[in-house]
């Protein structure tokens, strides 16, 4: 049984790590709108992707333009909406994400266009949110479907920079199942994550 840590507002798998918040903010201050790469100091084997071209000339740091970010110009406000205008659990998940120490994107907006992830940050990095209170507390929740979706978004889906797994509202048993699945996937040398996982939700 996985130990439940009360008072811990989130857990970010070390193997899916991202650049620390302060470092990203410093990077933005120095480099304007350049995107902090996921290939930062916390990235330990997993969490990177080879699809993002690195922009050279950033004083030793690596910055990239994401594939999804390129596809959707942040200058076109018609593509986006405030996260408060999103439906269901999404606005609260966005709030939780922005409060997470693992979030280095300054602000989030929602995507309106259909062929896009859920959120985009100030660095044009994109986020897909999965799970959330409505899903966890649904009497019709199919746990196999949920685990499959989490796996798909981390290991199969292209064009996103972060998968945001919101465990808010999940029971202890559900959380145990999720981490059992994540641990199994992470221990499989044949599985290579396509984006960085951020986990939200207290009491686990």
């Amino acid at each position, binding site marked *: 049984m996985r130990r439940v840590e009360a008072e811990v507002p989130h857990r970010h798998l070390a193997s899916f790590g991202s650049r620390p918040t302060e470092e990203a903010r410093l990077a933005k201050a120095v480099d304007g709108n350049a995107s902090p790469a996921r290939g930062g100091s916390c990235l330990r084997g997993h969490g990177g992707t080879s699809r993002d071209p690195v922009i050279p000339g950033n004083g030793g740091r690596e910055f990239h333009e994401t594939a999804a970010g390129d596809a959707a110009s942040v200058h076109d406000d018609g593509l986006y*909406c405030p996260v408060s205008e*999103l*439906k*269901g*659990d*999404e606005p609260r*998940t966005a709030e939780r994400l922005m409060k997470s120490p693992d979030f280095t994107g300054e602000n989030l907006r*929602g*995507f*309106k*266009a*259909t*062929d*896009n*992830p*859920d959120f985009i940050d100030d660095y044009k990095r994109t986020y*897909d*949110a*999965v*799970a*959330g209170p*409505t*899903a966890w507390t*649904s009497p*019709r929740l*199919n746990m*196999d*479907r*949920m685990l*499959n*979706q989490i796996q*798909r*978004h981390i290991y*199969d*889906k292209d064009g996103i920079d972060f998968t945001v797994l*919101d465990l808010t509202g999940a029971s202890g048993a559900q959380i145990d199942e999720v981490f059992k699945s994540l641990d199994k996937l992470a221990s499989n040398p044949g599985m290579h994550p396509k984006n960085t996982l951020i986990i939200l939700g207290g009491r686990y």
Partner: protein
Amino acid sequence: MAADVVFTEESPWYTNSHTWGRITEYASNRADEPASGDRQDYLDTLGVDFTFMPDDKAVEVASWLSGVIERMLAEGEIGSGETDREHAQALIRKLHSEMQLRAVRR
């Protein structure tokens, strides 16, 4: 949240919460259609997963959802841009493919 439509053979169709919310809302508002049955029960916050449905139900849900998306396109409820239209049409094509596959199995 991000929603996936998962097919037996076709690759999954992905969309964001904004779009999926509009689709499910539109589908709910069309619940006055005759014999809507329990088809909407297969649309949830995760999306739709045809691999968890028996053949009969998969054909029924795919046909119904395809009709929902087609009406949304026709009414301009979805697909305001060319990319969005193509994305929605890709879903319709995948749904038709699922219907054919499952119909043969029945």
